[in-house]
C-alpha cells in the first residue's frame, strides 16, 4: 500500500502520529501531582495555599479540598484506595495533591510550593516482612489480601516414595513494564458530554469505570484511544491520577490532561511479577515426574486491586507442559508499601514457567539425565489433547515434542554440548552453558472476558468497514484485521478499513490484553464477515427469486450458481439498503506453547554473562500476519532478556525504590545487549475457533528468562542454583560462582 508495509507506518514515520500528548485542545490545563517521598506514613499536612498564588496555576487541591472525590473502583471497602491520600501514605509517590497549570512548567512551579508533612512509619516491601503482620498497611487488618489454590494437596507418601525430590526457592522480581510512552489521559468536557483521550488497552472498560466514578451515564462519556506508545499490560486500568483529572475537568468545565513523565512512571506505574516461590518436584528413577508443588508468596503492592488475584494465574498454569499427575499450587497475596503489581507482558505465566523450568534442570542434573531428554520423557504428547491439568486448565492443542526438537535443531544443541565439553577441558576458556525452557501460555482471557464486539459493514461505495473492541498499542491492528476481513470476503485489502478504540463508534468492546486480539477479535471478525456473506446471499437470492442454495459467493460478489450474473457488495447495498453485521463473539481460551533455548558464556571472575545465542520456537496456531507475529516475538524475547539479566526494583531500608537515576538505574536492554536471536515456528491451530489463531507476543517474556538462567547455572555447574536470582547482575553471578 503506497510503499508502506503497514497502514500505521506513514503517519508514525513522518511525525504525523497522534499520541495523547500531541493533541492540542484550547485552554487545556496540565496536571502535576505532588507525590509522597516516603513509602509509608501518616499524612499530617497537605497545604496547597501557596501553590494557588503561583502565576499560571489554575488551582491546587489536596484530598481535604475535594471531599467528594471518589476512590479507586474494584477495591475492598475496608481497604479503600483514595485517589489522593487522605490520611495514610502507603506507597512511595502516592499522590498527596494535584496542581493544575496553564502549562506543565507553571503546574510544576505550583507543585513545588505545596507544603506537605508526613510522619514516617516503618515500610514493608517484601512478602516475608508483610506476612509477619508486625507492620500493617491497614490498622487492625492483616496484610494478607488473598489466599488461593489450584489442584489438590499432595500426600506426604508421594514425596517419600519418589526416587528424587528437588526443593528450591526462587524470586520473580518486580519489573516495570516501561512502554516508551508513559500513561496519558486528556479529559475534555463539552455540553453534557465528557470526551476522554487516553493511551489505553480497554476503552470501554475505562468508560464504564469513569461513568461509575463520576456517577453519570456511560453514554455521556466518549473514550478515544489514539496512537498509543506501547502498553504491555500496564495501560488497561483506571488509575488514581485518571480519577483526579476526570473529576477536575468536570468540576471546572475545562479540559485537563495528565501526561505521566518517566520519573513518575518509575515510582507509580504498575509493576509486574513480584513473587517469592518455593517448589518441590518429585520424579522416579527414570525421570518421570510424580508431583509438583508450588507455593507463591506474592508482594502485590499497597492496595487490594485486580493484581491481588493475578498470582492465581501462576497457580492455574503451574502444571506447565508436562504430564505430572499431581500438581498443587498455593498463593498468598500480601500487601506491601509499593505501587500495585498488575499484568505485565506474560502476567502470571512467566512466574509459572520460570520455577518449573529451573527446577527441571536441577532435576536433570540430579538424575544424570540430559535436560532435553528429561523434558521429552514428560512433555504432554500430541494425542493427549485436549489435556486437563491437575491445576484446572484444559489445554486445547499442542505438539511440544515438535517445538522442543525444532529448538534443539535450530540451536545446534549437540554442537554446543561438544563445545562445552571442550571448554571444560581447557582451563583458560570461559565456561559456556546451555539452557532450555518449555512453556505453555494461556491466551484469550478468563471466563467473563472471552467475548468481544465485532462487526463488518459493506458501504454503497464498495468499501468495507470492520469494527472491533480491541485497541492497538503497537500491534498493527489497522493492517492485520482489514487483511483478514478482505481475505474472508475475497476483496482487495485496500477496500477494508478498521474502526477501533472509540466508544462512540462501537456498540461495545472489551479491549486488548491477555493476547486476545488475534484469537478473539480475529476469529470474531472472520465470523462476522462470514455472516455478512450469508446475508448478502440471502438478499441476492430474494432479488433474483432464487433459493439461497442456488447462490454462491466468491471474490467479493454473489453469483447465481447457474449463469454469469454477479452482484458486488456496493450494488447490493444500493439495491437492498445498509448491510451491517454486529456480533458479540465468544470463544474459549487457548494455549500457545513453545520451547526456548539459550547459550551463554560466563566470566566467573567478573560475573559477566554474554549471551551467545537465543533460539525461540513459538506456536501460536495460525499466525494472521507472520511478520507481525515475529516482530512481536522478537521484542518480547528482548523484554525477557531484560528480566533475566538487567531489570529489577531494588529498595532501600526506608522502603524507597533505588531508582533515583531513572532509566540509568532501571536498565532496559539496549541494542548493545541483543544477542543473536533465531525464531522458529510450529503451527498447531486451536480447534476452539474456525480461525485457529492463538495469542502471540507474550512468549518471549515467558520462555526466555528461564532458558537464560538455566544456561548460566549450567555454565557454572551449580548443583543447587538458588543463589542465581534474577536479574543476573555481575554481582549475583560472581557470588553464585564463588
Amino acid at each position, binding site marked *: 500500500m503506497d510503499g508502506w508495509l503497514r497502514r500505521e507506518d506513514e503517519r508514525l*514515520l513522518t*511525525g504525523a502520529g497522534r499520541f495523547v500528548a500531541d493533541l492540542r485542545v484550547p485552554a487545556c490545563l496540565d496536571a502535576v501531582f505532588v507525590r509522597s517521598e516516603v513509602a509509608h506514613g501518616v499524612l499530617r499536612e497537605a497545604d496547597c495555599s501557596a501553590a494557588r498564588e503561583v502565576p499560571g496555576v489554575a488551582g491546587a487541591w489536596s484530598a481535604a479540598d475535594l471531599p467528594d472525590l471518589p476512590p479507586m473502583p474494584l477495591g475492598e471497602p475496608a481497604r479503600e484506595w483514595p485517589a489522593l491520600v487522605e490520611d495514610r501514605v502507603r506507597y512511595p509517590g502516592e499522590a498527596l495533591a494535584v496542581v493544575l497549570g496553564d502549562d506543565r512548567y507553571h503546574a510544576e512551579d505550583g507543585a513545588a510550593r505545596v507544603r506537605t508533612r508526613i510522619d514516617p512509619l516503618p515500610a514493608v516491601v517484601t512478602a516475608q516482612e508483610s506476612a509477619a503482620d508486625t507492620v500493617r498497611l491497614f490498622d487492625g487488618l492483616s496484610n494478607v489480601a488473598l489466599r488461593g489454590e489450584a489442584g489438590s494437596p499432595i500426600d506426604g507418601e508421594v514425596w517419600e516414595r519418589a526416587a528424587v525430590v528437588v526443593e528450591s526457592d526462587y524470586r520473580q522480581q518486580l519489573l516495570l513494564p516501561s512502554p516508551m*510512552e508513559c500513561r496519558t489521559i486528556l479529559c475534555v468536557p463539552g455540553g453534557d458530554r465528557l470526551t476522554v483521550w487516553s493511551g489505553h488497552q480497554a476503552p470501554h472498560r475505562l468508560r464504564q469505570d469513569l461513568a461509575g466514578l463520576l456517577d453519570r451515564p456511560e453514554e455521556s462519556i466518549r473514550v478515544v484511544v489514539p496512537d498509543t506508545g*506501547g502498553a504491555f499490560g500496564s495501560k488497561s486500568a483506571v488509575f488514581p491520577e485518571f480519577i483526579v483529572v476526570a473529576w477536575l475537568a468536570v468540576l471546572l468545565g475545562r479540559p485537563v490532561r495528565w501526561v505521566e513523565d*518517566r520519573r513518575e512512571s518509575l515510582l507509580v506505574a504498575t509493576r509486574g511479577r513480584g513473587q517469592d516461590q518455593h517448589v518441590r518436584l518429585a520424579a522416579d528413577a527414570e525421570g518421570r515426574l510424580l508431583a509438583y508443588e508450588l507455593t507463591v508468596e506474592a508482594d502485590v503492592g499497597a492496595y487490594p486491586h485486580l493484581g491481588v488475584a493475578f498470582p492465581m494465574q501462576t497457580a492455574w498454569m503451574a502444571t506447565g507442559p508436562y504430564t505430572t499427575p499431581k500438581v498443587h499450587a498455593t498463593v498468598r497475596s500480601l500487601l506491601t508499601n509499593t505501587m500495585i503489581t498488575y499484568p505485565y507482558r506474560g502476567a502470571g505465566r512467566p512466574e509459572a514457567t520460570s520455577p518449573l523450568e529451573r527446577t527441571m534442570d536441577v532435576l536433570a542434573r540430579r538424575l544424570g539425565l540430559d535436560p532435553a531428554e528429561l523434558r521429552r520423557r514428560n512433555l504432554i504428547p500430541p494425542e493427549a489433547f485436549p489435556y486437563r491439568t491437575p491445576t484446572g486448565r484444559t489445554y486445547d492443542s499442542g505438539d511440544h515434542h515438535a517445538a522442543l526438537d525444532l529448538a534443539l535443531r535450530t540451536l545446534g544443541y549437540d554442537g554446543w554440548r561438544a563445545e562445552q565439553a571442550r571448554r571444560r577441558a581447557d582451563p583458560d576458556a570461559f565456561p559456556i552453558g546451555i539452557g532450555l525452557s518449555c512453556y505453555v501460555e494461556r491466551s484469550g482471557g478468563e471466563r467473563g472476558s472471552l467475548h468481544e464486539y465485532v462487526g463488518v459493514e459493506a458501504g454503497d461505495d464498495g468499501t468495507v468497514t470492520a469494527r472491533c473492541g480491541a485497541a492497538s498499542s503497537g500491534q498493527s491492528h489497522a493492517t492485520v484485521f482489514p487483511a483478514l476481513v478482505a481475505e474472508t470476503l475475497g476483496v482487495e485489502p485496500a477496500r477494508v478499513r478498521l474502526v477501533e478504540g472509540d466508544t462512540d463508534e462501537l456498540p461495545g468492546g472489551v479491549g486488548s490484553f491477555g493476547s486476545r486480539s488475534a484469537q478473539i477479535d480475529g476469529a470474531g471478525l472472520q465470523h462476522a464477515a462470514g455472516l455478512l456473506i450469508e446475508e448478502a446471499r440471502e438478499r441476492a437470492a430474494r432479488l433474483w427469486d432464487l433459493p439461497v442454495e442456488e447462490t454462491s459467493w466468491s471474490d467479493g460478489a454473489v453469483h447465481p450458481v447457474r449463469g454469469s450474473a454477479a452482484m458486488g457488495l456496493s450494488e447490493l447495498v444500493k439495491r437492498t439498503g445498509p448491510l451491517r453485521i454486529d456480533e458479540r463473539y465468544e470463544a474459549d481460551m487457548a494455549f500457545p506453547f513453545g520451547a526456548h533455548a539459550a547459550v551463554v558464556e560466563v566470566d566467573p571472575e567478573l560475573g559477566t554473562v554474554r549471551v551467545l545465542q537465543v533460539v525461540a520456537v513459538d506456536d501460536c496456531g495460525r499466525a494472521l500476519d507472520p511478520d507481525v507475529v515475529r516482530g512481536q516475538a*522478537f521484542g518480547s*524475547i528482548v523484554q525477557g532478556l531484560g528480566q533475566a539479566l538487567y531489570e529489577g526494583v531494588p529498595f532501600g531500608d526506608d522502603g524507597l525504590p533505588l531508582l533515583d537515576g531513572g532509566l540509568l538505574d532501571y536498565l532496559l536492554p*539496549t541494542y548493545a545487549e541483543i544477542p543473536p536471536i533465531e525464531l522458529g515456528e510450529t503451527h498447531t491451530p486451536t480447534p476452539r475457533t474456525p480461525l485457529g489463531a492463538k495469542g502471540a507476543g507474550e512468549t518471549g517474556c515467558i520462555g526466555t528468562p528461564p532458558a537464560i538462567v538455566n544456561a548460566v547455572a549450567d555454565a557454572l555447574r551449580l548443583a543447587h542454583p538458588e543463589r542465581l536470582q534474577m536479574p543476573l547482575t555481575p554481582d549475583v553471578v560472581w557470588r553464585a560462582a564463588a
Partner: protein
Amino acid sequence: MRITLTVNDAAYPLEVEPRRVLADALRDDCGLTGTHLGCEQGVCGACTVLVDGEAVRSCLMLAVQCDGVPIRTVEGLTGPDGQPHPLQRAFSAERGLQCGFCTPGFLMLAAGALDHDLSENEVADLVRSNLCRCTGYEPIRRAITRAAHAHQNGQDGRHRSV
C-alpha cells in the same frame, strides 16, 4: 526571551522562558509534535533532533541555545516533493517500528549520520544510543543499514544533507 527557532527551514519567532527545553518549544510552541518525550533525562533518545546537523537530545537542550541555529525534526525528513526519506521507507520495509513512539528519535539519529558512509559498527553504535521497547532493535539496525546502503549506492537521489 525573544528567540527565533529555524525548524525544517521555517522560522518560528518565539517568546520563551530561559528554562524552556528545546523539546517543549518544538512540541508546544512550534506545534511540531513528531518529536516525542520518553524520559526527559537524555537516556531514551525519543526526542532526538538535529541541531546544526548534529543529533541532540532535545530534552537536554534549552530552546534559547538554539536561537538562529538550523534545526531539523522528523516533520522535515520528507522531501519537498513529498517523497519519503529513504530512512522512512527502510523503517517500514524492515518493520523497524511497532508502536512508533521512539521512531522519530531513531530516524533523526540516523539522518544525522547518513551523510557519510556508515560501517556496520557505526550503525550498531547509532542503534545502541536510543531505547525501543517494542522491536528488540534488530529491525531498526536492518532499516538503518538498508537506508545507508541505498545512500552509498547512489540510489538515493532525494537524500539531502541535513
